[in-house]
């Protein structure tokens, strides 16, 4: 009994991992069963069965055992994948999750799963006579495809790509047997490769033949890319009616000796990557090219042995805090150095101090960078659960939805990951519920029955950009204006004045929901306004774009980390404030007489546009910012900050400069401070408050209303 606490922690973690694998693979199973997936899923169930039995959680062991039997039967081709079977497996998986959570909370689980076990056992009895092609491993298919023979210019192109550091892969794409419009699928494959960062060098049959459907069930492609191969593969597997995509790294030898398809047809794609033949027969000593994709594959699934260690998140947080301290002290030392320098012209000691300070600065920067990296997680930690969620939602609403995910490997700080999860769930739910139309409606509108939601993530400068795009019914600005007026959010006048783009942003207004009826899923009171607030709270930006009848795209821009940011330091009423540089557009120096008052609101005209002003002094210190107080003789400084489409000018007394700051939260004993998101410690040891730009915008809107 002594050590069970520790073992339980390990067990729980491992169980979570296996459950995760099961979830992903059951989905894959439904979409495109392959022997690889079946093997992996069987292993996961087997591992979980073993460990839960070892820990004495017999019910859990029993349930995983039943699942394992089902996977084994699937693997052997004794039964077939069906929606009802997948639903049963998902039920079992949900029960496993619940059991795991119970154990995590109280050390035991009392969930009864006899019924589930029985239902899984029954599934085993329901043997089918028809072992369809979908269930048979690809190797059993006797269609050994004709070989892709490269023309000289294509071979040149492939070699040049390799010389340029790209990787070249040989794809064999197999369509489902009953595919109706094969040329369309082929076109979609080509487009998907293009969209995922691949370039098609050659195809067999050639593109004209593909267009004219002059091929059987499979075709081959030679693709150059700098993206991880899994990325491309999963993009292709996301296309419906694609039964299988086989990928192997291309080498010159492969093309030169056309009699080689045999091993590829027999082994799974992964095997080919492993194969020493594929690596040694190549005339170029460049095994890393082929092994890189393989490493990525193995690390993402089976944990590599000695290459990684598990670290408690709290420890990483402590490390980051310590580095934060160091960043502050670095700034402090640099400042002291400059002060000494100013005092004594030529002093060797001062020079040494400055040199040491510079060195500490560089080391600190590097340390900071590495620790930040250690805290990064690929966004797939959030994305992982979406395929299942979308599947369940689509079933519930009677819609057909395909979720395409891109850029799962994009990394961002775990603190950001935690915050982005709920808003994404909400937006995806909206897409399924309100965006994608029912299949019949789609057909009537000349669209494919199945709607597509594309969820992508990628880095862009210092941001991560997440986009959710659907090909549903889109939003009509006119209708949004109408609803806003009806709900009393805007006056008719104000609504008419909105541009179409601004009208789309109305969905973020509090109390706005266009759904005709409140559904269980989307209409539970947390609206898009909460989504936007959550995103803005961490310095992110949401943007929306929609074309009626064609779909909607929501873009979310998030900072890579929340711990350390660049900020513009300004002085207001003798005190220093930090404005996150991510929201600063520009700074201006204005003369008091440039300020005009529109109603009670001070504004200036900047390049032909009116820019509302907020005096931080008035805002924070309740001082009057009126025509009279503006008539001082001194020029004023304005920091123009932007939030989406909107801009506002913050009036400050002085601009100090740009600096990297470590964000610290304010004690809850201070209460919610409107317009302030946290605090930071400056190089001189003093505290500066960090402005929350989104809050200030609310302030403007509130006054405008």
């Amino acid at each position, binding site marked *: 009994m002594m050590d069970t606490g520790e073992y339980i922690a390990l067990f729980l973690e491992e169980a979570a991992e296996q459950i995760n694998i099961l979830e992903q693979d059951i989905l894959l199973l439904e979409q495109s069963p392959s022997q690889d997936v079946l093997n992996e899923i069987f292993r996961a169930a087997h591992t979980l069965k073993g460990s839960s039995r070892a820990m004495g959680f017999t019910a859990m062991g029993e349930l995983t055992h039943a699942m394992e039997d089902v996977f084994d039967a699937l693997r052997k081709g004794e039964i077939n994948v069906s929606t009802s079977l997948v639903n049963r497996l998902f039920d079992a998986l949900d029960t496993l999750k619940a059991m795991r959570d119970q154990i995590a909370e109280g050390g035991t689980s009392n969930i009864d799963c006899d019924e589930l076990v029985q239902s899984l056992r029954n599934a085993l009895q329901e043997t089918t006579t028809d072992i369809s092609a979908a269930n048979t491993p690809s190797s059993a298919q006797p269609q050994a495809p004709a070989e892709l023979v490269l023309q000289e210019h294509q071979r040149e192109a492939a070699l040049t790509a390799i010389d340029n550091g790209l990787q070249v892969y040989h794809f064999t794409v197999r369509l489902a047997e009953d595919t109706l419009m094969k040329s369309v699928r082929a076109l979609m494959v080509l487009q998907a490769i293009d969209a995922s960062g691949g370039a098609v060098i050659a195809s067999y049959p050639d593109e004209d033949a593909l267009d004219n459907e002059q091929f059987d069930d499979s075709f081959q492609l030679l693709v150059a890319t700098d993206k991880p191969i899994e990325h491309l593969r999963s993009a292709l597997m996301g296309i419906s009616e694609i039964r299988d995509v086989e990928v192997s790294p291309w080498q010159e030898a492969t093309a030169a000796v056309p009699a080689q398809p045999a091993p590829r047809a027999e082994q799974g794609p992964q095997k080919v990557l492993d194969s020493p033949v594929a690596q040694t027969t190549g005339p170029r000593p460049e095994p890393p090219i082929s092994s890189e994709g393989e490493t990525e594959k193995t690390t993402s699934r089976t944990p590599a042995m000695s290459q990684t260690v598990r670290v408690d998140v709290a420890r990483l947080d402590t490390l980051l805090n310590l580095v*934060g*301290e160091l960043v*502050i002290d670095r700034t402090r030392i640099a400042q002291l150095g400059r002060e000494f320098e100013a005092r004594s012209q030529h002093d060797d000691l001062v020079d040494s101090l400055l040199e040491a300070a510079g060195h500490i600065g560089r080391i600190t920067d590097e340390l900071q960078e590495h620790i930040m990296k250690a805290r990064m997680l690929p966004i797939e930690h959030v994305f992982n659960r979406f395929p299942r969620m979308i599947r369940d939602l689509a079933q519930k609403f009677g819609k057909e939805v395909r979720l395409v995910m891109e850029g799962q490997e994009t990394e961002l700080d775990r603190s950001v990951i935690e915050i982005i999860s709920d808003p994404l769930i909400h937006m995806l739910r909206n897409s399924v519920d309100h965006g994608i139309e029912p299949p019949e409606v789609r057909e009537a509108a000349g669209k494919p029955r199945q709607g597509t939601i594309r969820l992508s993530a990628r880095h862009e400068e210092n941001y991560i950009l997440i986009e959710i795009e659907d090909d549903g019914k889109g939003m009509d600005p006119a209708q949004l204006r109408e609803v806003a007026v009806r709900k009393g959010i805007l006056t008719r006048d104000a609504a008419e004045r909105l541009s179409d783009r601004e009208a789309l942003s109305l969905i973020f207004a509090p109390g706005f929901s266009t759904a005709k009826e409140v559904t269980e899923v989307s209409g539970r009171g947390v609206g898009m306004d909460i989504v936007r607030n959550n995103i803005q709270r961490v310095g992110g930006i949401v943007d929306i774009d929609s074309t009626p009848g064609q779909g909607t795209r929501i873009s979310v821009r998030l900072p890579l980390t929340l711990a350390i940011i660049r900020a513009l330091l300004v002085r207001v009423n003798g*005190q220093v404030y930090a404005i996150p540089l991510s929201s600063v557009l520009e700074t201006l120096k204005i003369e008091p007489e440039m300020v005009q008052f529109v109603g009670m609101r001070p504004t200036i005209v900047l390049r032909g546009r009116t820019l509302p002003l907020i005096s931080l002094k008035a*805002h*924070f*210190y309740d001082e009057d910012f009126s025509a009279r107080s503006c008539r001082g003789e001194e020029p004023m400084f304005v920091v123009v900050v932007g939030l989406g489409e909107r801009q506002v000018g913050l009036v400050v007394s002085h601009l100090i400069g740009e600096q990297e700051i470590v964000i*610290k*939260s*304010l*004690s*809850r*004993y*201070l*209460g919610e*401070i*409107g*317009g*302030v998101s946290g*605090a930071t*410690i400056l190089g001189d*040891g*003093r*505290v*500066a*408050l960090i402005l929350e730009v989104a809050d200030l915008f609310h302030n403007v809107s509130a006054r405008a209303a």
Partner: protein
Amino acid sequence: MSAATMTATAERQVVAFRLGNETYAIDISYIHEIIRMKEITFVPRAPHYMRGVINLRGRIVPVMSLSARLGLPVQEETPQSRIIVVEVNGESIGMIVDAVSEVLRLPEDHIEPPTQMAGTESADYISGLGKVNDKLVLLLDVEKVVEQQ
């Protein structure tokens, strides 16, 4: 010494300090440290008794004027003024006091319930009255003091 006498002489260690002319005390277990006055960064729109935040060796700690919190007249800052940093529910908060006098040992049987305080503005925050050498010491209920209403 028998267990019985131990119980009889059980005492509380408190830090006594001055607000105006009165002596208050805080149970020593709450006290994180006592520091001299230092630069306080004003936090706009915080509760009126909050003076702002200080940098306590890299941590940002809010500081309140205890006099303002208790509804007492706020004294000018003097060289004797101190910030008592207490830790309540895992979070630190500083309290400005006019002077810190001493650490006292208050026998439990010298502490009375604050019934005679009833009616005064600070009564809500007093958990007991202690008597030391004819001097009256008001024991603060720290948790009530730091919580916002």
